[in-house]
């Protein structure tokens, strides 16, 4: 079973933008139907860029302990913006995974024992469940990179090998 196959996932803005810029939001919708979470801090960041992800569930922080967790994560991770902090907070509160490509956000999530994946992981998952072919995944990835996604060359190469081997 693919690790992304079960459970809820909290997305940061940048990972959503990868799919918006490659016109593949329908892939996210089908892969994460009923399991995609967005912190309202992420919703706001996306709205500022005129992006809306209707299928995702918006999760606000409503209690003082929730806000306290947000503030604690923020204070311990000055390298992150409010959106990424919100996404991590929601992942922690909902015992969900985090979807981000950002190194600092991944590091912060790892310290909180939150499972992390990113755009590459999602494409890999799409291939695994036969939503897209390996060739399609590579094409989408190439478009993502052209649209500003920043992924390590090593990981990208590994991904190509993995999805094209079958």
């Amino acid at each position: 079973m693919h690790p992304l196959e079960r459970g809820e996932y909290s997305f940061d803005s940048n990972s959503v933008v990868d799919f918006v810029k490659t016109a593949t939001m329908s892939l996210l919708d089908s892969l994460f139907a009923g399991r995609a979470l967005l912190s309202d801090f992420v919703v706001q960041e996306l709205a500022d860029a005129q992006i809306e992800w209707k299928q995702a569930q918006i999760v606000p922080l409503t209690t003082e302990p929730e806000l306290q967790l947000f503030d604690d994560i923020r204070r311990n991770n000055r390298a992150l913006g409010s959106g990424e902090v919100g996404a991590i907070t929601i992942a922690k509160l909902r015992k969900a995974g985090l979807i981000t490509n950002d190194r600092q956000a991944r590091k912060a999530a790892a310290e909180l024992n939150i499972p992390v994946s990113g755009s590459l992981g999602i494409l890999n998952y799409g291939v695994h469940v036969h939503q897209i072919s390996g060739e399609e995944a590579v094409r989408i990835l190439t478009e993502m990179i052209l649209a500003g996604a920043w992924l390590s060359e090593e990981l990208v190469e590994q991904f190509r090998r993995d999805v094209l081997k079958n």
Partner: protein
Amino acid sequence: MGENLKQLVGRNLRTARETAGISQEPFAEKLGISRATLSAIENGHVAIDSTKLIQASRILSRPITDFFRAEAEELALLYRSAEKIVPEEQLRVKFQNFCEAYRELEEIVGVADNVLPPPEYPFAHHLHSKALNFAKQVASSERDRLQLGKTEPIANIFSLLEENGVRIFDYEVDQPALFGLSAFSKQYGPCILVNSKNTIERQAFTLAHEYGHLLMHRDRYRNLNPTQDSEPDFEAMADEFAGLFLVPLDGLRDFLTRTVGDRKIALEDIVAAKHHFKVSLKVISRRLFDEKRIPESEKDDLWKKAGQLGHAELAPLDRHKIIRDWRETSRFYTLAKKAVLGEMISIGKLSELLDKNVLETRSRVQAWRKELTFASA
């Protein structure tokens, strides 16, 4: 017992609302809650939810982080304007946000306090009887200190001041008669906001003027309400400093010797001098008048012409080149670039620091990466 989070957020929310001059009733209405609920939030009895907090940050133009802050240093400002107008509160907040973002970037990259602020030349009425002479001396001393030479024009005042520890923020202010703001604090150092809606010539003069304040009147950055100095001496001093800093006496004489000689100065000479020193028609004609190279009537005529142009400028300088040259070497952007390309900060953090949305930030980062790719190829 210490303040808990809901008390802290509530207090910061109330302070921000009051500073913005919004009373509880309309603010509560904008947030879609009752006045009683807002009061309970502000008094720390009820926790605000994140959706309302985000709305509040938008209404008050404050970053979310402001509401979680245990203590804040408010900036004391001086400003330069054509008329007696007061900078809007939102502008003051934007300026403070920029100063904080700059400081935070320095800390993240690990270069905080590596650039010393410019020295102080404190002016005191009881010690210096002739204020304008004092400003003149400071302009000359500062040019010497910065090794600008006795005659050379300043190639790019944005870059020059930033290289010397001044944090510069160019921002489109909707009040065109408000030329700029400056601030000085121990935490943020010297900061200048320049209204990018003004002509580039006016921006250059504003930078020099505010720089004069930062050098000569640093002790006046105390009042938290923006101050347009009521003492005309101080504004005249900053103007005198700016004029001589941008157009040094020896430089003007040298330029005129080389290009005009003893003949009567014509309009094309004035325009050539304006371009040489990168100042406005008003500034150069004022300096030529001070040097007795043009009569008062001619200066007044030029000022009148300049006035008729409103917010435009005769024979304008290449605004885009000046700003582009500055941005290419701007310390703020250099730090931002270093932080994001070195993965010291996230794209979301960079968006906040640059006050841009996530798409704009991604495009900018992509351009920076391309630069690197070309450089390493």
